[in-house]
C-alpha cells in the first residue's frame, strides 16, 4: 500500500491495513466479538457478509480471537446493522445487556422517544422500553459505549434513570410474606387474648359466676354488652382481610374462603348484638343468647391457620431459591492482559475468565487453558466432581475444586444454563397438572354451594328442629360456613407440584410442566435410543486378539502408530486405547490410505496393514485362523479390524461403541418399576441385539431410519401403551415430541430439550428411573392431598349441618368447626412439604 501523504489518519489506516478512505467518508472502526464461529469457513462467511454491506470499507475476521475488525462509513451503516448482518449468518455478537429503571414515562409516545434516543447512541445494538415495568433493556457493545453513556442518552431525552431493584422478585415475595406473617400473628394474639375471657364469660356457670350472672339479669346483659365491645376490634381489625377479600370477590361475582368466614363471624356477632340491644324482639327469653366467643375464637384460629400455612408454603419453594442463590456475583475477566473483577452482568460472550480453586464458575463457557475438577452437582445432581481441561465445557454456578483454569465465556445472562433451568422450573411450577382440572371445576361452584347448604340447613333446623329452633339454626348455619375449606382443595395440587418440580431440579431432572409430571407416572413402556443414550456414542477399543508371535501391547502399539494422525473415529479409538494402556506411539512412514479397505504404513521398519477382510484378501494374506474370532466379535456388536505385519496376519483389533457403565443397572431399575424397555436404533440387527443382550433389553427396534423413529413410537402407542422416549440428538426430536413423555438426556441439543417434556441434565440413564419415581411420588402426594381435602369437606359439611344430630344428638360447635378448617389447609401444605424429604433410590448395581 502506498500513501501520498503520511498524515495521522493515514498511519492509523495503515496500522489497520485499510485503504485510505475518501474525503467524504466519515470513517469508524469497531471490534466486534463473535460467538459461535467454529471453523474457518464460518469466519469467511462472516467476513464476506460484512464486506458485501454498503458502507463497509473492510472487514477482517479473526477466527482464533473470535473477533471482527470492521472499518465503515458511519453515515451509511450503523453498528447495529453490522451486528444484524453477523446474526443473519447465524452467529452471535458479544454484547452486554443492561436493564435500567426509567422514571417519568407518562405516555405511549415516551416509549418511542426513549427507544429512539437509545438506538441512535453509537454502540447500542438494540433498546426495548417496557412501559409496564417502567424499564429499558439495552443491548450494547461494551467496547464502544458504556453503561454511563447509555444512561446519559435517556437523561438527554428528558427522563430520569433509576436503578431497577437488584432484588429478585422471589426475594420481594419472601419479604412480603414475612410482613404478612407478622401481621397475621399480631391479629392472632389480639383475637386469642380477647377470645379466651370472652369464651369463659359466655358460660358463667362453668367459671363459678352462675349465681352472680343469672339468665335474664341486667348484670348479665351488661357483661354481654362489654363482650360485644371487646370483640368488635377482633371482627373489624383481626378479621378485616375476610371482609375485604369477600367484598373484592363479590364484586367479581365469585366467592372464596373469605366470603365464608366473613359471613360466619359477622352473623354470630350481629345475632349476639341484637340479643343484647333488643332482647324483647325475641319471642322467648332463652333465644336472646350471645355467640361473641365464636367471633373471637374462630377469627383467632383461622388467622393462625393462615399464618402457619404461609410459613409452610414459603418452604415449598426452597428448591428455586437455592438455584437462584447459586449465581456467581462477580467474574475475574482478563481484558487487555489485565485481571479485572467485574459484576457477572457485565461479562460478555468471548471474555476470557480466570477461575481459581474454590471459586464459582461465573458463566457458561469453554476451557481454554489449565485443568481442574469441577463440582457440578448443583446443576446436574451428580455428586462426583468432573475433570475439565482445554476444550471442555464449563457451566456457570458450578464450583471449581482443585486447579485454576481460564475459559472463554460462551453464554451469559439469561442464556446461561442456570438461568434456563430457573426459568424452566418456575414455568413448570406454575403450570397445571391435568388432575387439577376436576378440582378447578369444583372450585368454581364450591363456595356458593356451601352458602346454599348453610341456608338450607338453617331452614331445616328452623322449621323442623328442636327448641330453641332459632339458636340451633344460627349455630348450624355458622358452623357449615366455617368448616368448609376451599383452600385445602385449591392448595392440594399446586403445592405438591411445586415441591415435586423443585425436587427434580435438585436432582438434575428438569420437568417442563405439570402435564409432563403427571403423565410420567402413567408410563408403562420406555423407548431408549441406543447411540448416546445406552452407549457412550463414540467407538472405543474393546479387544486385542493376537495371532502369532506379537504381544497384545505390541500389536496395539503398531496399529495405533499407524493411525496416529487419523481423523477416522475408528482410528481415533485405537489411538485412544493405546494411550490408555500407557503406550508411547512410534513414528509411521509411508502412510497410505486405501479407500474402502484400510491403511498401510511403515512403523519401526516393519510394514503394517490395518483394515478389513477385503484388505487382507487384496494383499493375499491368509486369515483362516481369524474367522471364528472375527465373527464372535461381530456378534458382540463390535467392529473387528485385521492387522498384518510384514505380510502375515498378526491379529485382530476390535472397536465398538461401548455401553455406558450404568446402563445395565439403570435398565434393571426401569424394569423394576414395571416398565417395558424397548431399544430403538438405526444400527443393524446384529449390533443392536448384541447391545440389547448386554444391558438386558428384550425388545429391539433395529434399522430404524431417523425419520421413522416417531412412527415407531406411534406404533407402540397404538398397542395401548403410554410411551416414554429417551434420546439425545436432533434426529430424536420428532420421536421425543410424539412420545407421551419425551426425555432428553445429557446437556443435549436445544432442539431435543425443546421437544422434550423432561430434561435430564448431564444425566446418565439412571436418572430416567429417578424421574419416573419422582413423578410417582409426587402424584401419590397430590392424590393424598386431594383425597384428604375431599373427604374433609365431604364429611365436615354434613356433620356441621347437623346430619348426625337425629341419630346421636351430636352437633358441632362453630369453634370446633373453625379449628378444623384452620388446620385442614395447614395439613395439606405440610403433607406436600413431606415430599421435600424424598430421595432418589440409589440404583442397585
Amino acid at each position, binding site marked *: 500500500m502506498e500513501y501520498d501523504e503520511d498524515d495521522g489518519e493515514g498511519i492509523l489506516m495503515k496500522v489497520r491495513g485499510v485503504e485510505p478512505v475518501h474525503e467524504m467518508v466519515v470513517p469508524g472502526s469497531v471490534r466486534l466479538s463473535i460467538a459461535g464461529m467454529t471453523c474457518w469457513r464460518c469466519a469467511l462467511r462472516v467476513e464476506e457478509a460484512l464486506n458485501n454491506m454498503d458502507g463497509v470499507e473492510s472487514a477482517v475476521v479473526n477466527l482464533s480471537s473470535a473477533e471482527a475488525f470492521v472499518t465503515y462509513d458511519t453515515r451509511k451503516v450503523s453498528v447495529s446493522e453490522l451486528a444484524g448482518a453477523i446474526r443473519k449468518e447465524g452467529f452471535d455478537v458479544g454484547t452486554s445487556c443492561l436493564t435500567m429503571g426509567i422514571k417519568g414515562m407518562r405516555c405511549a409516545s415516551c416509549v418511542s422517544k426513549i427507544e429512539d434516543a437509545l438506538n441512535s447512541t453509537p454502540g447500542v445494538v438494540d433498546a426495548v422500553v417496557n412501559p*409496564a415495568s417502567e424499564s429499558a433493556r439495552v443491548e450494547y457493545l461494551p467496547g464502544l459505549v458504556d453503561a454511563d453513556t447509555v444512561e446519559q442518552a435517556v437523561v438527554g431525552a428528558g427522563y430520569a434513570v433509576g436503578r431497577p431493584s437488584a432484588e429478585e422478585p422471589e426475594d420481594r415475595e419472601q419479604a412480603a410474606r414475612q410482613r404478612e406473617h407478622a401481621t397475621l400473628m399480631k391479629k392472632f394474639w389480639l383475637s386469642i387474648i380477647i377470645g379466651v375471657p370472652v369464651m369463659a364469660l359466655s358460660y358463667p356457670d362453668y367459671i363459678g359466676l352462675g349465681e352472680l350472672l343469672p339468665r335474664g339479669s341486667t348484670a348479665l346483659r351488661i357483661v354481654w354488652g362489654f363482650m360485644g365491645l371487646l370483640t368488635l376490634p377482633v371482627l373489624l381489625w383481626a378479621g378485616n382481610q375476610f371482609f375485604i377479600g369477600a367484598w373484592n370477590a363479590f364484586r367479581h361475582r365469585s366467592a372464596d374462603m373469605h366470603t365464608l368466614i366473613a359471613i360466619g363471624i359477622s352473623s354470630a356477632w350481629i345475632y349476639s348484638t341484637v340479643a343484647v340491644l333488643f332482647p324483647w324482639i325475641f319471642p322467648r327469653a332463652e333465644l336472646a343468647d350471645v355467640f361473641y366467643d365464636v367471633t373471637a375464637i374462630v377469627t383467632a384460629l383461622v388467622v393462625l391457620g393462615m399464618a402457619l400455612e404461609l410459613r409452610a408454603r414459603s418452604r415449598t419453594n426452597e428448591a428455586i431459591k437455592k438455584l437462584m442463590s447459586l449465581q456467581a456475583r462477580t467474574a475475574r475477566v482478563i481484558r487487555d492482559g489485565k485481571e479485572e473483577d467485574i459484576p457477572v452482568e457485565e461479562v460478555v460472550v468471548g471474555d476470557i475468565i480466570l477461575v481459581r480453586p474454590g471459586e464459582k464458575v461465573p458463566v457458561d463457557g469453554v476451557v481454554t487453558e489449565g485443568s481442574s475438577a469441577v463440582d457440578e452437582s448443583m446443576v446436574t445432581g451428580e455428586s462426583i466432581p468432573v475433570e475439565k481441561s482445554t476444550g471442555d465445557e464449563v457451566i456457570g454456578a458450578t464450583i471449581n475444586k482443585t486447579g485454576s483454569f481460564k475459559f472463554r465465556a460462551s453464554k451469559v445472562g439469561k442464556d446461561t444454563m442456570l438461568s434456563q433451568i430457573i426459568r424452566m422450573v418456575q414455568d413448570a411450577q*406454575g403450570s397445571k397438572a391435568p388432575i387439577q382440572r376436576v378440582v378447578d371445576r369444583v372450585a368454581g361452584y364450591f363456595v356458593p354451594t356451601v352458602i346454599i347448604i348453610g341456608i338450607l340447613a338453617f331452614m331445616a333446623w328452623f322449621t323442623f328442629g328442636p327448641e330453641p329452633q332459632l339458636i340451633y339454626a344460627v349455630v348450624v348455619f355458622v358452623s357449615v360456613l366455617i368448616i368448609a375449606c376451599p383452600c385445602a382443595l385449591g392448595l392440594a395440587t399446586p403445592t405438591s407440584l411445586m415441591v415435586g418440580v423443585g425436587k427434580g431440579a435438585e436432582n438434575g431432572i428438569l420437568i417442563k410442566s405439570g402435564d409432563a409430571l403427571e403423565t410420567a407416572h402413567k408410563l408403562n413402556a420406555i423407548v431408549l435410543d441406543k447411540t448416546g443414550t445406552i452407549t457412550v456414542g463414540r467407538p472405543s477399543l474393546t479387544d486385542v486378539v493376537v495371532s502369532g508371535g506379537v504381544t497384545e501391547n505390541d500389536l496395539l502399539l503398531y496399529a495405533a502408530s499407524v493411525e496416529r494422525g487419523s481423523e477416522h473415529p475408528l482410528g481415533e479409538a485405537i489411538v485412544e486405547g493405546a494411550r490408555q494402556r500407557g503406550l508411547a506411539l512410534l513414528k509411521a512412514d509411508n502412510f497410505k490410505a486405501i479407500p474402502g479397505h484400510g491403511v498401510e504404513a511403515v512403523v519401526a521398519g516393519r510394514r503394517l496393514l490395518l483394515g478389513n477382510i477385503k484388505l487382507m484378501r487384496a494383499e493375499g494374506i491368509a486369515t483362516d485362523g481369524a474367522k471364528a474370532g472375527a465373527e464372535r466379535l461381530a456378534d458382540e456388536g463390535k467392529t473387528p479390524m485385521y492387522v498384518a505385519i510384514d505380510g502375515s496376519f498378526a491379529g485382530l483389533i476390535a472397536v465398538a461403541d461401548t455401553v455406558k457403565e450404568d446402563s445395565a443397572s439403570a435398565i434393571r431399575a426401569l424394569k423394576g418399576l414395571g416398565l417395558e424397555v424397548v431399544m430403538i436404533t438405526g444400527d443393524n440387527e446384529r449390533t443392536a441385539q448384541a447391545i440389547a443382550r448386554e444391558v438386558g433389553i428384550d425388545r429391539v427396534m433395529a434399522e430404524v431410519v431417523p425419520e421413522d423413529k416417531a412412527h415407531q413410537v406411534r406404533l407402540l402407542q397404538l398397542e395401548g401403551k403410554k410411551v416414554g422416549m429417551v434420546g439425545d440428538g436432533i434426529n430424536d426430536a420428532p420421536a421425543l415430541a410424539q412420545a407421551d413423555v419425551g426425555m432428553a438426556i445429557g446437556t443435549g441439543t436445544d432442539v431435543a430439550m425443546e421437544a422434550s417434556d423432561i430434561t435430564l441434565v448431564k444425566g446418565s440413564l439412571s436418572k430416567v428411573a429417578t424421574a419416573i419415581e419422582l413423578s410417582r411420588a409426587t402424584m401419590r402426594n397430590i392424590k393424598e392431598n386431594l383425597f384428604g381435602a375431599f373427604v374433609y369437606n365431604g364429611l365436615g359439611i354434613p356433620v356441621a349441618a347437623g346430619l348426625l344430630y337425629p341419630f346421636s344428638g351430636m352437633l358441632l360447635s362453630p369453634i370446633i368447626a373453625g379449628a378444623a378448617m384452620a388446620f385442614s389447609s395447614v395439613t395439606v401444605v405440610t403433607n406436600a412439604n413431606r415430599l421435600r424429604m424424598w430421595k432418589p433410590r440409589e440404583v442397585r448395581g
Partner: protein
Amino acid sequence: MITKIIVDAVGLVLIVLIAWYFWFSRKKGEAAAVSGGVQEAYIIVKGGYTPDVIIVKAGKPVRLIFERREASPCSERVVFKDFNVSRLLPEGEKVAVEITPERPGEYEFACQMGMFRGRLVAEAG
C-alpha cells in the same frame, strides 16, 4: 307457623339470588386498547381480576399487564393454561403477559388455585 313460612321463603329467595349472581349472570367484557399493533389491557389483581373479561381480536398479539395489589398468596401467579403461560406476580409490580390467541374463542386465565378467574374473549377480527 307464619314466621317459619316467611323465613323459609326468604331462604329460598336467597338461594335463587346466590345461584343467579354467582353462576348464571353474564359479565360484560372490556375491550382491549390497541397501541402500536398490540392489543393492551391493564388488569388489577385484588380479590379477583379487574376487569376479568377482556375482549380482543383473534390473530393479533395481546399484552395483558397485571398489577397485583394484595399480599394474599392465593393470587401470586396467573396461569393461562391454553397458552402454557404462567407468571409470578410480585406485589405492587406490573407484569406483562404477551400471548396471541390465533383462533376466536374464550381463553380462561386464573390464579394457580383457580379461585380467581378471568376470560380472554377473542373475537374474529
